[in-house]
């Protein structure tokens, strides 16, 4: 049974029916809006029709699940009996899960800072250069690639062949050129986790670069002009003018990437499957809940992830507000 177009037709047909049906319903809804009571002071009828589809989906698909998952985290693996804090206690005592927490800590420690630093450095290097737009596209491109694709790209770089054979992975080849022994990089803890973090940095540096570049360009020309007349050096210029000016944006970028990093799943799943001591919270949550059918532990991990994300988001919202006030 190879690829045949006939097998694919039902899928495409359902796609067309699904989209057409949806649009027809929305069209009818818009007509209904104006058929109902008009010119009332509170527009209940209109509000209900406009909001109901989205709100029903959000309540059923997010609000209720959040409550349910929180409850499940205090229950056993089948979600049948209450076990109190057992899942949380297990989480912080089981050696395998402690490794997971340590790895997540490593990810958040290295990933966001390095991605942001590289992004800022590169944005400064290419600022107002003739080749700026092309140079930026090159760094930015990995943002469009899926984490799965990025993982395969990097797995190929880390590929291993025994010392007597020719290497096919670039990293081992470079080691061999310098007279070293090739290694099975992805099997070596804890360096394998660092090599996985490289993939994240590779993807996220482009995001940091684009956002920070916009911030650099927004520094008022007068300030730059004044500094130039004073004849400040590149280094002083960076510390006294550029960095303070982009600082709030830098924080937003750093926090945004941190949140992404906390939830990282695809890279670990594709490159090692979470084996060889590389698992992180998001991957362990998936494994516990959907592989080992331990709903309690899976939910506890999800709740812990949620708790880690909350302070970051609050910090981000406050920075955002400060940025907005500065604009005024």
């Amino acid at each position, binding site marked *: 049974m*190879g*690829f045949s177009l006939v*097998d694919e037709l039902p899928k495409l*047909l*359902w796609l067309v029916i*699904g989209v057409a049906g949806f649009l027809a319903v*929305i069209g009818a809804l818009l*007509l209904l*809006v*104006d058929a109902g009571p008009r010119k009332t002071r*509170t527009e209940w009828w209109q509000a209900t029709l*406009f909001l109901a*589809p*989205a709100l029903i*989906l959000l309540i*059923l*698909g*997010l*609000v209720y*699940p*959040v409550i349910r*998952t929180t409850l499940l985290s205090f229950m056993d693996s089948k979600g049948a009996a209450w076990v109190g804090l057992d899942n949380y206690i297990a989480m912080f005592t089981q050696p395998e899960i402690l490794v997971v927490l340590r790895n997540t800590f490593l990810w958040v420690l290295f990933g966001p800072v390095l991605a942001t630093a590289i992004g800022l450095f590169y944005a400064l*290097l*290419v600022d*107002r250069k003739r080749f700026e737009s092309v140079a930026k596209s090159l760094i930015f*491109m990995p943002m*469009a690639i*899926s984490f*799965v*694709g990025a993982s395969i790209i*990097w797995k190929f770089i880390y590929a291993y062949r025994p010392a007597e054979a020719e290497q*096919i*992975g*670039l990293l081992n080849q470079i080691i061999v050129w310098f007279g070293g022994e090739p290694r099975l990089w992805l099997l070596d803890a804890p360096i394998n986790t660092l090599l996985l973090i490289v993939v994240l940095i590779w993807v996220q540096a482009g*995001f940091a670069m*684009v*956002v920070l*570049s*916009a*911030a650099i*360009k*927004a520094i008022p020309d007068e300030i730059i002009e004044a500094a130039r*007349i004073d004849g400040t050096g590149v280094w002083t210029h960076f510390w006294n003018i550029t960095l303070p000016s982009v600082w*709030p*944006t830098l924080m*937003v970028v750093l926090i945004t990437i941190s949140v992404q990093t906390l*939830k990282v*799943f*695809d890279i670990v*799943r*594709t490159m090692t499957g979470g084996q060889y001591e590389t698992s992180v919270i998001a991957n362990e949550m998936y494994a516990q809940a959907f592989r080992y059918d331990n*709903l309690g532990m*899976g939910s506890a991990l*999800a709740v812990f*992830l949620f708790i880690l*994300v*909350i302070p970051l988001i609050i910090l981000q919202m406050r920075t955002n507000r400060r*940025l*907005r006030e500065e*604009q005024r």
Partner: protein
Amino acid sequence: MSTSPQSPPAEEEGGGGVRKPSSPRAARDDYATHVPPLRAKENPAHSRESAAARVRKRLTSTTASAIAIIIAVLWTLPTASLFLSSFRPELEIKTTGWWTMFSDPQLTLNNYREVLFSPGQGQLASYFVNSFVITVPSTVFVVVLAALAAYALAWVNFPGRDWVFLGVFALQIVPLQMALVPLLRFFSQGVTIGGYQILPAWDLPGAFAFTNVWVAHTIFGLPLGIFLLHNFISQLPTTLFEAARVDGAGHGVLFRKVVLPLTVPALVSLAIFQFLWVWNDLLVALIFAGGDVSTAPLTVRLAELAGTRGNEWQRLTAGAFVSMVIPLLVFFTLQRYFVRGLLAGSVKG
């Protein structure tokens, strides 16, 4: 590269390019109101610089360019090496490094033919169709539903409006991990409230099974979608609505004839993000689309190939590119919307 976002100021006159916002937040405000672009001014101080200073500046500028080029090469090399390798014959990929191909070039399209169409090799063409069938509705649903909700939250009068908006805003912080287990239960067991079956279990056969993934992706895309579009729609001038109301237009007509046409740039930005997000997603697909050829998307299949056949590089290299073609096309043709959306805060949790 006329579509590139960071084109020089002179090219931004059309209002298409990003207008150098100073922050993600500013960009959001910026693209609703038409602020004229900042222009890089001529530099009057330039002539006053001494010759020595100019030489020094030229030198640092050259060093900067050199470092920039090194970083750019480092960043491009991984993708380029995989791309070049995907055209090498199986035996070559598995036994020699891709850097040897420059002295002994052997190229073939065999890898692509096999990985796309042979059942034992990946049959990615079917998964490509699945990715497409998953992504298009998930994008359309989110854009349309988010636009409707954002409009109501901005311009329809009802008590508690601000609270509803705050609630939706707060939902953005929920990691989707929190929703996976209960949502999957809805699909497999239906919804019961107090012993009453509100919705039956969805045991959808064949192609109908795509509906699960559509619904899941739509739910996860809505909070950010509503938030982004609300930022845009709420900034439309009030006079626009007053004029239309005087003419007797209801909210349905207003939305269709006035708001939608004016919101197109924001809708496109959101659509691109949702499209790329869904196309590149692995987690939601793994859980809601199942793992076989009838519904699983490319990402699921590739992750599987990378795990079970991690050394079949002829498949992985070509397969990875099959999955990247569409995102890269979208990225390069619509880069300026992509950047604009990014600056407006379109990063999903």
